């Protein structure tokens, strides 16, 4: 009893001390994520780290930084050069070029619904454990923006607008790499796509063509496409399982993918199963951008599978090269996949270059 009373007193003390420091300290304006209805209906809450809450000022700063070449070594390249709004924030080139004209070895990834990456493993191989961590990397990567953080921080500090914007977003803390990644991460978390024709169909606001309807049937049938085990379903409207698989692209791996990160040979040749949203804008496809068209992708699953030791057993028809879809089913599957594209996402005025 006595102990409990003490707790009580302690509590009161806490309350009182909190309220006394509340007075007119500047705080950035909290901003809720705009969660699509279809996500709030079926999915768990998005991942927002407690040490980087969304704010109006933080998102605006992150957006400015994302489109500004100031972060690159020679002031010529912004994140948005390899993550273009019109391509659902991916790159139409198979391999993006860094500031020194050197090509990378992976296809750029679309940036969408990143707060719903529940496993928080970013990049094709899962090498970045959080979104903020991911953003540290391109700035200093020699085949990307090839800068140093001290130099990037100095450019921002000497700029006419950034010091004030950082002050407003982070309540006076000095500009450093951590705050840069936090601001950009806040902006990236607002890049939400959940208003495709298929989403509206699920909400009962839209009808689909018979072709698209047969396409979802091919996608969901274990004896036809069997895509849903890795790429989501109408109740997992992310259209990814956020995990890593070997989907039968190669017999030998030029890029070990997840295996390079974990060091476990059982992970060799595994890559993130990407979301199938916005495929209309994200060609070329796969981690190395090897397929230019969705027809090539579908032909891969239908006839082009190759066996390797780590192939996912869900690639069940590998002995026959794939699931052997009819031409009609292929066309319908493609029509369904395209119904997951969301023109409102790529044209959202809040996501365009503010500079």
């Amino acid at each position: 009893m006595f102990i409990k009373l003490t707790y009580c007193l302690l509590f009161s003390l806490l309350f009182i001390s909190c309220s006394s420091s509340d007075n007119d300290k500047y705080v950035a304006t909290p901003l809720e994520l705009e969660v699509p209805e279809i996500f709030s209906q079926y999915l768990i809450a998005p991942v927002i780290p407690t040490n980087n809450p969304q704010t109006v000022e933080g998102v605006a700063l992150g957006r400015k930084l994302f489109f500004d070449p100031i972060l690159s070594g020679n002031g010529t390249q912004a994140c948005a050069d390899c993550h273009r709004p019109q391509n659902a924030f991916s790159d139409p080139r198979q391999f993006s070029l860094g500031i020194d004209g050197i090509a990378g070895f992976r296809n750029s990834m679309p940036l969408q619904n990143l707060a719903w990456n529940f496993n928080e493993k970013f990049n094709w191989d899962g090498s970045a454990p959080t979104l903020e961590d991911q953003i540290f990397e391109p700035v200093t990567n020699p085949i990307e923006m090839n800068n140093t953080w001290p130099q990037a921080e100095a450019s921002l500090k000497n700029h006419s607008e950034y010091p004030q914007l950082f002050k407003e977003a982070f309540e006076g803390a000095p500009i450093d790499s951590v705050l840069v990644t936090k601001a950009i991460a806040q902006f990236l978390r607002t890049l939400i796509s959940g208003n495709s024709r298929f989403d509206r169909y699920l909400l009962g606001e839209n009808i689909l063509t018979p072709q698209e309807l047969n396409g979802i049937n091919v996608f969901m049938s274990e004896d036809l496409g069997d895509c849903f085990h890795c790429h989501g379903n109408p109740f997992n409207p992310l259209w990814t399982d956020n995990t890593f698989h070997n989907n039968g692209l190669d017999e030998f791996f030029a890029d070990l993918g997840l295996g390079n990160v974990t060091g476990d040979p059982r992970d060799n040749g595994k890559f993130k199963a990407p979301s199938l949203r916005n495929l209309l804008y994200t060609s070329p496809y796969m981690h190395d951008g090897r397929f230019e068209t969705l027809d090539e992708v579908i032909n891969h699953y239908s006839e082009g599978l190759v066996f390797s030791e780590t192939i996912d057993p869900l690639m069940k028809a590998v002995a026959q090269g794939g699931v052997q879809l009819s031409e009609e089913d292929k066309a319908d599957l493609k029509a369904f996949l395209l119904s997951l594209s969301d023109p409102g996402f790529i044209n959202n005025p809040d996501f365009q270059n503010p500079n």
Partner: protein
Amino acid sequence: MKKLSILLIFSFIIIACGSDDDNNTPTEVAVNLRFSQIFDELTVTSLNLSSTVYVNEMNQELTISRLRYLVSRLVLTNSNGDSFLLSPYHLVDLSNSETLNLNTNLTIPEGDYTLSFVYGFNEEDNQNGAYADLNAVSWNWPEMLGGGYHFLQMDGQYNINTEPAPFNFHNGTARVSEGVFEQNFVVFNLPNTLTVSENSTINIQMNIAEWFRNPNTWDLNVFNTPLMPNYEAQKLMQQNAASVFSASVE
């Protein structure tokens, strides 16, 4: 002012809680669950995935690369007939060690209990898209096969030393014919007494070998993939499920 009233409410709660401290009720203990997997005498953990070769009843050599299963309505009942719901549902994923333990946040009186649970979901619980955490890990069962959720996913390769070929041992609602479905869950009322005391953990164990032999001997050359739309395979799995689980206290 608002803060003061919150404070008052707090104190109230704290005092109210304090008042029944000295009663002589039986000791309440926490209940923890563990899910473990074996293949007869071999322990199966994530380290064995895609590497250890197991031999089933038909002498077929196989590896397992993915094992996930759902149990629901986990209830402990004592001789007074008091029952305690340990968890409404739980998905075990062998590759995710967090799912192998379940701390229920529940305390129950020390003593003897029996355990019951449902393998999968019963008809009432097995609703399309009803569980956000299960949707997020794509645990759904296609609507044209009756919808709701998977009960089991065991994927791997068989004939591993000759011509490896995949199997997808997936279980859920059985489709009799188009639009006609049959429930496929199994209710377990395990007969043995579980004596629960301080720091004890209830170990729920799956013997994977039983999926391949009891009562139906499973021939992977016949039933490998696709099994989800295969009514016969779905019912054979349900029959074999009946002997895969046991429970003990550690």
